[in-house]
């Protein structure tokens, strides 16, 4: 069952990738642009997406059967589920607005999210006592669904900015838009590097002195550019670290970050050399037929739909469960605080939009920031800030 499950996820992954190209074809195809009909490419694209989505639901169900609990209990499972919800949200919004461009930008993000998820340990793990509750399913699924719908507004915002930002001259806008592109490329870089070395079965063990000056072991799965404090390499024939960090810093995580950035820079450099202009500039023709007001509205509606679901799942259900499992509904755990921050951010977003008329470009930039906050809470809080939610 576990094997079927991971195969289904793999199938979904590939299908999302294929569907992206069909959607890209759909917006290049001139036919069906002016009439309000979808063209053939778009129909194929959405069909493949739906099949991929069904495959991923298959992954979800089979893994649930295999483990006996909803597969949302660690970072791999949760992040994958977030990717699935992202595709689900896209399908729903596509059915309303029939905009292939949204597919061109949402699906790659979903693919990237799922690829990123697979970098975490994928073993089926039993539930620790704190997680043994039906609220696990209720809280995590609603929270992820809310975040995924909010993430659609990121895709819409990105499309908006790709079209509206003037690429003919350098400006703050071109810089930040390109920075967004670079971040996406860096994520891809991390996935590529991690996959390559995991296929090579790379492993280098260190013994080092931790911050309490006690000997500790660290096992690297990426070549050590950054070595641990007073680290001694234990595995023969592996490279020595280029640099060493003080004991206070987690060298292994630092090493991963450095690798990701290096890979991102290299990858981005290559892309720039090939394209000979900004990625955003290259993508601009792809979205030239987009109706800006429509994309703006999609982004806004995504927030409108996603915000209540997020509040319900990530705050209200979370509080109910926290009262049962942790004795108090609110304890200022970092994950809780970041859920509150997300809530406050989108509350500010809605107020700015509704009362101060922040439409269009401003609203699109806000959607980008919102996505950064969501991704930070999804991943960084677990990895960097340890807290009660560190289940990975």
């Amino acid at each position, binding site marked *: *069952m576990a094997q079927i499950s991971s195969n289904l996820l793999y199938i979904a992954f590939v299908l999302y990738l294929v569907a992206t190209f069909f959607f890209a074809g759909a917006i290049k195809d001139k036919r069906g*642009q*002016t009439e309000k009909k979808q063209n053939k490419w778009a129909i194929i694209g959405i069909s493949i997406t739906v099949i991929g989505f069904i495959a991923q639901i298959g992954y979800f169900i089979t893994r649930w059967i*295999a*483990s*006996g609990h909803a597969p949302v209990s660690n970072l791999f499972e949760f992040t994958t589920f977030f990717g699935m919800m992202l595709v689900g949200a896209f399908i729903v919004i596509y059915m309303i*607005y*029939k905009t292939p461009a949204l597919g061109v930008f949402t699906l790659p993000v979903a693919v990237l999210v799922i690829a990123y998820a697979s970098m975490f*340990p994928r*073993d*089926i*793990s*039993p539930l*620790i*006592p*704190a997680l*043994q*509750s039906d609220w696990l399913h209720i809280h995590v699924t609603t929270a992820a669904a809310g975040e995924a719908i909010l993430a659609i507004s990121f895709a819409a915002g990105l499309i908006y900015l790709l079209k509206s930002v003037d690429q003919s001259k350098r400006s703050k806008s071109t810089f930040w838009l390109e920075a967004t592109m670079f971040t996406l490329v860096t994520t891809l870089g991390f996935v590529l590097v991690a996959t390559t070395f995991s296929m090579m079965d790379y492993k280098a063990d260190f013994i080092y002195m931790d*911050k309490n000056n006690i000997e500790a072991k660290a096992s690297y799965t990426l070549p050590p550019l950054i070595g641990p404090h007073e680290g001694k390499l234990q595995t023969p024939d592996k490279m020595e670290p280029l640099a060493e960090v003080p004991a*206070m810093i987690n060298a292994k995580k630092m090493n991963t970050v450095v690798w990701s950035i290096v890979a991102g820079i290299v990858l981005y450099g290559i892309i720039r050399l090939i394209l000979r202009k900004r990625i955003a500039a290259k993508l601009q023709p792809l979205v030239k037929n987009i*109706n*800006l*007001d*429509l994309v703006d*509205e999609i982004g806004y*509606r995504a927030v*409108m*739909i996603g*915000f*209540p679901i997020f*509040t*319900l799942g990530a*705050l*209200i259900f979370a*509080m109910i469960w926290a*009262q*049962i*499992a942790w*004795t*108090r*509904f609110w*304890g*200022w*755990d*970092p994950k809780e*605080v*970041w859920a*509150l*921050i997300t809530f*406050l*951010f989108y509350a*500010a977003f809605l*107020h*700015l939009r*509704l*009362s*101060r008329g922040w439409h269009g470009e401003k609203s699109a930039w806000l959607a980008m920031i919102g996505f950064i906050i969501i991704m930070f809470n999804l991943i960084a*809080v677990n990895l960097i*800030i340890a*807290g009660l939610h560190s289940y990975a």
Partner: protein
Amino acid sequence: MAEVKCECGHVNPHGTVLCEACGRLLDETQADNKLVEMRYEGSARRSQTYNKTIVDKIWNFFSSVKVGVWLIVITLVASAVGTILPQEMYIPPNVPPEQHYEQEYGWFGKLYYQLGFHNLYSSWWYLILIALIGTSILIASIDRFFPLYRSLKKQKVSRHESFLKRQRVFGITKGENIETDFEEIKKNLRNQRYNVREENGNILAEKGRFSRWGPYVNHIGLIVFLIGAMLRFVPGMYVDELVWLREGETKEMPGTKGEYYLSSEKFILEVYDKEKDDKDFTAAIDKTGMIAKNYQSDVTLYERVGKVIPGEKPELKKIKEDQIKVNQPLKHDRYAAYQVDYKLDELNKMKLNLTNKKSGEQFGMVTVDLYNPKPKYELKKGYSVELMSYFPDFEFAENGEPSTKSRIPNNPAFIFKMFTPDKPKGEVSFVAIKQTLEPLGDNDYKMTFAGIETKNVSALTIRKDLTLWIIFLGGVIFMIGVVQGAYWNHRRIWLQKKDGEIMLAGHTNKNWHGLKRDINRVIENTIIDEPADQLQEKKSANKGEDN
């Protein structure tokens, strides 16, 4: 202040921009605008009308959305700062915080501590921020709700031409004898579940007006929530206590004023087993080593009978037996007991033999209850042991004297006086784990270690929170309000005939796409032309791509 009488005869409150009844512009300064500002229906809001006294100024400050958003953003940033380093409640309790932060995080940790960020969420300034947000929510809502309610209530079907022309969605169609078309339109509107009103042959179709109240409902929810959060500080509303309960021990439930007692039968720790549990878990168990399956305390709850008499053992009545697990607290009479921590194999009793050093002969065993040691233990006839001093958590103090670090028997040590027939005055022996000292000269007898008894200890949090239902109610009201405001839209369509022309105007508070779709369905098979989006037209570079 003077009220404003509109040409149509309706009397509006001072400060009204658009006549509540007919929509005529009352504020001449806005006459040049191509579109009217419809956000609050051009109603007279206090904050937009008065700005003289100090009360006006405070009111205007808090009713401003700009101020509200700033408060939200400041709170957001402050909250984020609090997650950079762990808050005080999450650091190990055995190190003083001022040391902990500097030790772990260097100068940054020290600064963090000195700025008070280790207790950020209960700092006075954070609480003030929350209070300011609460005030802003309240005042901003009052400022907007009542005028808006009045406006929507007073609106008439027939609107002034200038009002219709300045709507974002507007169109004029030339045509005579359009009675049949109007009938068709009315039918279509009703099919779209619009509430259709007619007056002098003009039509106002409206749906989803209640979604306009969504923001105010959710703001009420937030206020209720914040009130609930404040009530925690009212005495008697909230209990948060921790009790360590050993197996076999009966203790008062702290925070219940001696009303309830708990005793622990046993504490159980279970881990996942590769052999017995699901085979799919094997890889994960191998990697982690051990994965906990269950933490459980089997307890009995007692209620005290009669009054508390100091110094006397309370009389207890058994109420129920329960198994407290994580996610399954024991609940009784608004109190709840949660499984939060445990300690396995804590030293409980220590057994020692009185032994003759030379012959090795033993004269009886002493069992010292490490929590409740007896002053004297009688053994065989003529033999007894007196416990002169007891150090549950032994260490040598700085002056070289033995002392104890705590009352928990982590490292018990004893000073015994051994009485035997040949040493009737007694011999003094200092006994600690793995060491014996004879401070008053060589002894003939010694206490030899003969074994220990251990017990598991459960840590239970005792909680009472009478504010929960208010907080929950606040949450429910908030959700209702948010859904009401977000998932429904207030749409209005006006149709008016004048001089052989039909004017069609539409307004929605959001989702213009949906409104246009509605209008297109309504005017299907009629002579009415599709109205234009005047906002899009204004800046339109993308004509013809309208969806």
